[in-house]
């Protein structure tokens, strides 16, 4: 068991707040992904949790035990830093094994456990090598192995797959998920990659400019975000945000699509309407638009097109747009049902179409 709670945590550097009054919970035995844009405060939050920094304000609790003032060495947390932090003068085996050796675990058990984790991560042939003899991906896997091998219930991973090639990332994502399930531990995984967040997460915490904008199960954050920034930050391709006005009759008008809200609301005024790419379809009888950019991903094609002075994005099956090129006409329709409507000033969810 390792339920983590942050209560009113703030962290300032020379008067600049990197984290501002963060109150959030990381559920026990789940894989929670902390995502957000660069400089949102993700790594700072992780450093506070691991004990490398002390918060300016607030408390940190693990299983109701206040660990705010507990030194890093006594927190029993597995940590995989963004930089590999491997000792260059000892072998990969010793790099992975030394936290266990420091805990006075027997040599036989160390060999067994290092062997197991090396097997999972595919680094068995590398154990006798020095870090300088490894590629970036191999170093990263060695660093993950070291972090994972610690006797801990809580593991913090700071963007561990950054810079790795796509194939390796895919395979390591699966390995990490399997490892979490096998250990029955709590994983808090930090990334700024929206696709990685969606692939990995059971729960998702969205951090933006030092504030938690949303913390919910991943499907809920994607389909029913409570805040405009959460909708903007989670999703690939990115969502389309249309400026609109919501009238007293519950009708939402944008320059591109007008639709009624599915449930009544008291809100009247300027709104931001979020349309996910899958809510926009390419149809011959649709509104006129012009293709600006096409990214062929194989089965799918991401099309950026211009309509009403605004650039929108959608994802369509590649064969259906194979004949299109830059500046080709791109007639489209937006499905009104499911569109999310947010208060443009506060970013709070007002309703949906």
């Amino acid at each position, binding site marked *: 068991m390792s339920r983590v709670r942050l209560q009113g945590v703030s962290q300032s550097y020379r008067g600049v707040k990197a984290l501002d009054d963060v109150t959030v919970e990381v559920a026990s035995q789940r894989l929670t992904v902390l995502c957000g844009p660069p400089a949102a405060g993700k790594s700072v939050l992780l450093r506070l949790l*691991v*004990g*490398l920094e002390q918060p300016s304000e607030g408390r940190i609790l693990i299983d109701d035990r206040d660990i705010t003032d507990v030194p*890093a*060495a006594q*927190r029993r*947390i597995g*940590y995989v*830093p*963004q*930089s*590999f*932090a*491997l*000792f*260059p*003068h*000892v072998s990969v085996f010793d790099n992975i094994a*030394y*936290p266990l050796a*420091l805990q006075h675990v027997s040599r036989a058990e160390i060999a067994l456990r290092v062997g197991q984790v090396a097997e999972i991560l595919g680094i068995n042939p590398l154990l006798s090598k*020095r870090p300088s003899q490894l590629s970036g991906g191999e170093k990263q896997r060695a660093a993950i192995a*070291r972090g994972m091998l*610690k006797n801990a219930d809580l593991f913090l991973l700071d963007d561990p797959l950054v810079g790795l090639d796509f194939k390796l990332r895919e395979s390591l994502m699966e390995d990490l998920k399997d490892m979490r399930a096998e250990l029955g531990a709590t994983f808090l995984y930090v990334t700024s990659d929206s696709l990685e967040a969606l692939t990995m997460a059971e729960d998702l915490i969205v951090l933006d400019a030092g504030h938690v904008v949303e913390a919910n199960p991943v499907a809920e954050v994607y389909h029913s975000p409570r805040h405009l920034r959460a909708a903007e930050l989670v999703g690939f391709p990115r969502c389309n945000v249309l400026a609109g006005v919501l009238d007293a009759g519950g009708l939402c008008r944008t320059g591109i699509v007008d639709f009624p809200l599915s449930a009544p609301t008291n809100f009247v005024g300027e709104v931001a309407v979020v349309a996910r790419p899958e809510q926009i379809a390419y149809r011959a009888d649709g509104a006129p638009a012009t293709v600006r950019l096409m990214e062929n991903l194989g089965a799918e094609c991401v099309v950026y097109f211009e309509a009403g002075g605004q650039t929108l994005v959608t994802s369509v099956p590649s064969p259906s747009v194979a004949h299109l090129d830059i500046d080709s006409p791109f007639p489209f329709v937006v499905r009104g049902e499911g569109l999310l409507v947010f208060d443009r000033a506060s970013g709070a969810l007002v309703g949906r179409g």
Partner: protein
Amino acid sequence: MEPGAPATINQSRDAPVASTGPWEGFTRFLGRRDVLPFLLLAPVLIFFIVWNLIPTLWLLGLGFYRFSLTSGRPPRFAGLYNYRSILNDSGVWIDLSRTFLFVFFAVVTETLLGMALGLLFWNSHRLPGRRIALTMLFSPMVLTPVAAGTFWRLIYDPTFGVLNSAIRGLGFSSVDFLGDGRVAFAAVLGVDVWMWTPFMVLMTLAALASVPKAELEAAEIDRLAWHQRLRLIVLHHGKFILMLGILLRTIDAFKTMDLIYDMTYGGPGSATQLVAMTLYRRAFEAFNMGWSSALAVILLLISIAFTATFIFVLHWRERREAES
């Protein structure tokens, strides 16, 4: 030309494309790939030849001559006579041993103290007064040795020196630091340590700056003891800079003359007579230039040996690490 006719270029095939004056030929010569590198190196080469190579060769040659400025005779070629004379001179061996002792104690003390102080100042960015403390710490290093020697001679003075005043204040009798053969060597050594420990602090701080923060943090999380962190991380990453500092201090301490000249002039007796002081006295008091040149060559070879050992050890460790 008829109006409306196409324009033509009135130029013969034999006409020169551009004029080639002597200046242009010269600049083209300077720009040649086989000339330009030497041209760019010329200032430093000239400096090196005039101030290093010629005096060294002169010194090397003079070492093979019997040449005394007081004899009034021209230099006489004597082969290895000066070198044999030096090797058979017990006084030189004693001075050399004393110098090695001085170098050993000075460098070890300065390195240990420098590392300790460097570690204290490391990560003390938030400490109030850090900059002032560092400036004060480094100030002895920027003093000229003669000024430092005079300064400490006054402090050590048995009659009105502040140190003896404090000793008397504690109820003890005065100590003649520079006049007593039993303590003079330690007193001069202390001044050298005072002057040059800041240099090792500087080298330690530079070495510490090269230590990756992530490795230290990983060690902190994994509960590595401080001495393990020092050995496995700090010394591993900072060893090159620290070894360079030790080498520079060793060579510099080996040449110590100015401090001795100002504080004790090698005395009392020969208690503080280091080999550089011996060289000075034989050259500029006895004016035995041939003998002094030979001794200078031997000292130069010893300094080169220090450097060669340092480079060998460094490469040997790198090779060993790469092989393992």
